[in-house]
């Protein structure tokens, strides 16, 4: 076994021709990502921000000053920042051990759990918020347990409308980001490295700290960056669980745009948000500058081991408690609520949902909603995979400024207000083609959010492929295509599947700006849930819960299928 890890930063040689050729290759790879990002993100966002800052065509900078000096804006910005930092740290703290368990420990039900933890990602905030309120309120199972043990004198724990509730929900939503991004790489680290360190006398902790951690760091940094951007732009969670007194910049942008129609204020806040996101990405870039190493990756199924010893088993148990308590119990609330009927439990809500005979124009038959969600999910996944693969390939080939810039620019949509993007679509995408009412815009908008996941998942793997594997194949006479098929594809295939699962979850979950893309004739599952929840009547609530459960089940099934997918060499790792 050769030494697998090698620090980056060896000096660059000076070969003129290959370098030019590489530059051309990189540029070629970047064309599509740049066009995509420019057309569907940069241009709409610029258009709406410009309209806000220069309503009469001339830039009015007084607006900027007004907002920046406003103490209200400053306190909102401060809250946005600190809750995002704390949420990200908490998520890492809870999810990194989870990533280990779900990628390295072999136990019954692992695959199902891995799919299940991603489900929160797709559920509408309003549904999850409602489940959290039930779990954190005075009538929660925790309080019931307290009363059972301590009697009626037991203190009632009520976390509704607190920052704690926001933080817990953020961990719930983002657990999968860390588990998937970090676990994807972790499952392919050669365990013999750590074994060697142990044989040489290192403690388990030291072996982790000095061998595994440096190898994992790029993936950890990537997932931290994504979680930070998500929580920085948190919207529904803050409104529903934090109570109406708390607001993030995102909430204020939403209010300024959709209620006040105060575009100057909205634009200023959008710029503020953008500045913070760029700063965060710069920090992230700095953190990962020297983190990348080449290493020999191995097939994931060969790295999993049954937990051995008390420590391993305790870790597994602790992670299972976290997963059940934090991630699965809100889902259980949904299932339970979908079964509540006028007389105890039953399948009434499900029957109604599946045999709905109301014939109104905007009623959404369950089958249609499922079909449309799958349709958008698959299309968005394909778009994100193509754009993401191109960008990741370019970033592997060349690490110049341009590539780094595009790579980071692809992350910016994650940290941009969905309202800004959505309203940008409205005023910018009517020419040359009027895409505003087009269903094609939906997967494109969803792919904006999914693409960075693809890049972040692929890049650590692509960059760590040991070049000598390819060289060896070439020496043995394999043509480039065959080298790619036999070396790269099998190794990257696993990561591609992980990325595909993520993209799919994002698209099915109706992220962000797609809310502002009108599509009356293709309503999706989340749209159907919103419609049901918007009506009085216990039966409508029950059906909304049944639809949410269906959404969770379909997502979990799809993810499970994607995780197990084997197409030739793809997924063998």
């Amino acid at each position: 076994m050769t030494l697998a890890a090698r620090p980056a930063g060896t000096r660059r040689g000076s070969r003129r021709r290959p370098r030019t050729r590489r530059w051309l290759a990189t540029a070629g790879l970047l064309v599509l990502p740049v066009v995509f990002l420019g057309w569907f993100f940069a241009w709409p966002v610029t258009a709406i921000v410009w309209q806000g800052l220069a309503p009469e065509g001339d830039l009015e900078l007084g607006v900027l000053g007004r907002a920046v000096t406003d103490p209200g804006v400053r306190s909102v910005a401060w809250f946005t920042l600190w809750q995002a930092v704390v949420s990200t740290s908490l998520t890492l703290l809870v999810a990194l051990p989870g990533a280990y368990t779900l990628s390295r420990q072999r136990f019954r039900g692992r695959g199902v759990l891995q799919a299940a933890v991603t489900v929160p990602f797709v559920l509408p905030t309003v549904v999850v918020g409602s489940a959290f309120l039930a779990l954190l309120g005075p009538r929660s199972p925790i309080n019931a347990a307290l009363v059972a043990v301590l009697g009626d004198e037991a203190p009632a724990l009520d976390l509704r409308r607190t920052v704690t509730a926001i933080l817990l929900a953020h961990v719930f939503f983002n657990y999968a980001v860390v588990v998937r991004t970090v676990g994807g790489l972790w499952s392919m680290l050669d365990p013999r490295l750590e074994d060697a360190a142990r044989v040489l006398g290192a403690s388990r902790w030291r072996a982790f700290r000095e061998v595994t951690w440096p190898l994992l760091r790029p993936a950890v940094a990537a997932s931290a960056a994504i979680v930070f951007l998500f929580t920085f732009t948190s919207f529904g969670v803050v409104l529903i669980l934090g109570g109406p007194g708390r607001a993030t910049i995102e909430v204020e942008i939403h209010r300024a745009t959709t209620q006040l129609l105060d575009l100057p204020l909205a634009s200023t806040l959008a710029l503020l948000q953008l500045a913070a996101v760029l700063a965060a990405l710069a920090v992230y870039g700095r953190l990962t500058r020297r983190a990348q190493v080449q290493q020999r990756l191995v097939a994931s199924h060969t790295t999993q081991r049954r937990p051995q010893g008390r420590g391993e088993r305790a870790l597994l148990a602790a992670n299972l408690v976290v997963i059940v308590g934090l991630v699965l119990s809100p889902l259980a609330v949904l299932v339970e609520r979908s079964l509540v009927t006028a007389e105890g439990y039953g399948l009434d809500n499900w029957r109604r949902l599946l045999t709905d005979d109301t014939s109104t124009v905007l009623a959404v038959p369950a089958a249609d909603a499922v079909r449309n969600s799958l349709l958008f999910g698959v299309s968005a996944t394909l778009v994100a995979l193509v754009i993401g693969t191109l960008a990741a390939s370019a970033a592997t080939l060349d690490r110049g400024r341009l590539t780094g810039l595009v790579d980071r620019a692809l992350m910016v949509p994650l940290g941009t207000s969905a309202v800004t993007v959505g309203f940008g679509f409205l005023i910018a995408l009517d020419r040359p083609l009027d895409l505003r009412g087009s269903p094609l815009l939906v997967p494109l908008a969803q792919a904006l959010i999914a693409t960075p996941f693809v890049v972040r998942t692929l890049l650590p793997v692509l960059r760590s492929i040991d070049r000598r594997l390819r060289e060896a194949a070439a020496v043995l006479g394999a043509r480039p295509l065959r080298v790619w098929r036999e070396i790269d594809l099998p190794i990257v295939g696993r990561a591609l599947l992980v990325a595909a699962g993520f993209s799919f979850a994002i698209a099915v979950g109706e992220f962000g700006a797609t809310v502002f893309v009108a599509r009356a004739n293709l309503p999706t599952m989340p749209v159907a849930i919103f419609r049901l929840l918007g009506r009085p009547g216990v039966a409508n609530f029950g059906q909304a819960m049944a639809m949410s459960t269906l959404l969770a089940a379909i997502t979990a099934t799809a993810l499970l299928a994607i995780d197990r997918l084997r197409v030739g060499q793809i997924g063998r790792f």
Partner: protein
Amino acid sequence: MTAPSPLPRPRTTSPVHRRGRRPWLFAAVAAAALLLAACAQDPDDEAPDPGADPAEEEPDDDEPVEEDAPDTDAAEDPAGTTVTLLTHDSFDVSEEVLEAFTDETGVEVSVVPLGDAGTALNQAILTRDAPQGDLLFGVDNSFLSRALDEELFVAHDSPALAEVDERFVLDPELGALPVTYGDVCLNHDVEWFAERDLEVPTDLADLTDPAYEGLLAVQNPATSSPGLSFLLATIDRFGEDGYLDFWSDLVDNDVVVTDGWSEAYYDEFSGTGGGDRPLVVSYASSPPAEVFFADPQPDEAPTGVIEASCFRQVEFVGILEGAENPAGARLLVDFMLGQRFQEDLPLTMFVFPVNTEAALPEVFEEHAVVPDEPLEIDPAAIGENREAWIEAWTSTVLR
């Protein structure tokens, strides 16, 4: 790893051009995948269209060429055209009613929901140079002045106005025509009050009574339309000088504020199972809805309405300035004010018809309450003060 760092180079150097090949191959595969994606999307997106819905948007995208000069041709005979109705997410109408319109006029209707009422209006204002549709439904009296100030609508003196209750015609220019009305009212959990032998409050002022401590859930007026209506109700009831005192008393009496209607109604309100507060801000039509959607339907509604708390909401429709199909839009407006459409309103949108000839469905006759003298504020006054009132409310209640 995004940083422009030097390439990781193993000590055993190798011909650089080899490095270059693999990503090219990736590009080729990726390009092929893109083609596949493009091919896969077309049939997928078109397939569901014909059967799914009368609303067709795609032809619009495919035919940017405007052959029919909208104003002249369409004015003569709009039959065979499509009219696009922009609206909020709570809009709905029975399929057969809309089909009747198409049968009568030959005009197809495409319904496009654009978010909540405020969002839909703001989208229409922002896209006024290139409207996304021909008419906008769903502007209510709290947003009416914004729509009128922006001169979003063209006037239409609909013949159907003859049957419409004059009280609802709030725009003398006839740009915005009333279609529905309803009331935002406090709802109470009938059983809860009966069990405790507690009197249901009859006046807004009762709510600050310690007997009702911790019983009320309301929505944030900054984010919720019924929340705003309830704030306006308190302003009308206690006056601009008194409403903040009332609200600070309410805070002392442990009022809970939620972000939106569904959280208040389903998570806090006891009348629908989820919560533990027996008083909530909802609609006058909520009790009949509770009966209508229950299975089996109860004889009495489980919830009731406190009449003295009701604030009137009127929703308007208007033909957009710059509409491509104004003739079709006029026909649709006439239809929306007519008896057929109006009688469909209660059980699809849970609002009341403004057409005096329209009959109410039985469940509304039996369980709905229409207050004789609801609280009301002039739309112009709302338009002028909305932000200041919300801001003052936020300072008093949330900070």
